[in-house]
């Protein structure tokens, strides 16, 4: 199958590669991901029980508490953070968490937004994904 190329807007630079984890519902790290394991704990999430660690995390929108950036940053501190985040709408928690990850821990977690909604049905769990947070290009090998 030909790779699927999604072009979004790069909000945080960096290159990353990993397996896809795809939430079709609004997502939050706050009370939603256990930083100590990277496991999704939000009872309302459709990827509850999956692990975001090292994966390219797709979700359409952020939701909930303004502390999500802090929860995200704690996953970075403990090494259980996603390799990259790809959203449809801008999620400020992802942007801020990623800026802090670079500032405090020197880690790149590229963030891309503005990918089409169809991405969330076309991209399958475990698809191999490469993200360029500079250009906003998301390449999905299927």
């Amino acid at each position, binding site marked *: 199958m030909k790779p699927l190329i999604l072009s979004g807007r790069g*909000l*945080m630079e960096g290159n990353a590669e990993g397996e896809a984890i795809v939430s079709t519902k609004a997502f*939050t790290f*706050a*009370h*939603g991901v256990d*930083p100590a394991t990277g496991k999704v*704990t*939000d*009872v*309302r999430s459709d990827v509850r029980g999956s692990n975001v660690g090292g994966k390219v995390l797709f979700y359409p929108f952020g*939701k*909930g*508490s*303004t*502390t*999500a*950036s*802090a*929860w995200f*940053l*704690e996953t*970075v*501190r403990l090494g259980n953070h996603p390799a990259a985040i790809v959203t449809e709408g*801008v999620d*400020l*928690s992802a*942007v*801020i*968490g990623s*800026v*802090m990850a670079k*500032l*405090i821990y020197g880690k790149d977690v590229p963030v891309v*937004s503005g990918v089409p909604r169809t991405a969330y049905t076309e991209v399958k769990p475990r698809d191999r994904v490469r993200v360029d947070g500079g250009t906003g290009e998301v390449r999905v090998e299927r």
Partner: protein
Amino acid sequence: MEVVTKVGDAVGADSLVPIKSAHVLAHYSSLHDAGVEVLERFADSGGKFAVPTSVDPASIDLQNWRSFGIPEDYARMQFRLCDAYARLGGMRCWTCVQYQVCNFPKQGDTVAWAESSAVVFANSVLGCKSNKITSGMDLACAILGQTPRFGMLVDENRKAEVSFKLSAKITSDLDYRSLGFFIGRNSGSRVPVLVGLPAGVSSDQVKHLGAGAAAAGPVTMIHLPGITPGSRTPEEASGEEKVEEMDVTRSDLEGVESDLDQTNETPDLVAFGVPHLSVNELGELAKMLEGRKLRAGVKMYAYTSSQAYDMALRSGILETIEVAGARVSHSTDAEISPLKRLGFNVVMTNSAKLAEIVSSEGEVRIRYSSQKKIIEEVTN
């Protein structure tokens, strides 16, 4: 500050604008060890807040934490946050109702506040302009004294786009919370206007209405005609545009109640005060508890600011509450307490915000009911 410029770029802000005040988060339960490192890094580098800055509640009662069973190691991390925050020059209020305690912007001021319920109050009641500022960016805005101009800072974006008409009669404190929650859930990203509130609605009731709305969705403002500056009528709120109208009926409020109420189990904790109770609300609680006694096996905590706590102490309110077997806890609240670690499994509350947020992890189960019904159930 890179945080502020990156966010500005991400949201397409056209400029940075000065702010009159900031409100930041510094509680350990959300910030974790990483957040301690962030605050200490900012404080160590000699950073100072450029504008009057208040802070949300801590994860522990800063005075009586030992008697609330908070483990030493947990308290130590919270105190590191407190120390770093103090070095940055913030007001040590530790409350989510800073607008009732120490942070008093005037109508028309631009502010950068974290704490979603306070942002709704700022935009809807005080007539200030604030976005809901995410953790990390809150500190950056406070230190910079500036914030990107987008969202609710742009007049065009503040117009009401959906109208809620309350047709149910308000019969309890719970109704304000459920009504707010209903509005939050059904507004999506639109700014709502609400008509039909009782004329005598209090600022505390509006506080809980806004908190419910912000917990259920991205709402940062509710136009309340007659209360919200610049919105004397629904037409003024929407800029004379025709908007979708939704009725809010008794069955809508009951729908929220049944969604948030998850269990019939006997609670091991009753929690009032998310967001913090005012001293007047503590007084009302004391009146309801007078002559009653809390049943064995259940704890009842009322959360408030240290300032309201002091007033309650001086006016005998605290004593009445304690005689009934309940306690008042200040500078913290249940939402950001280590509930599970303290051994609480079933929490009963009249806070839609607490119910929504705590239940999302699925570890603590929630019962959602009015203050009156709760007291009748758990006291003799």
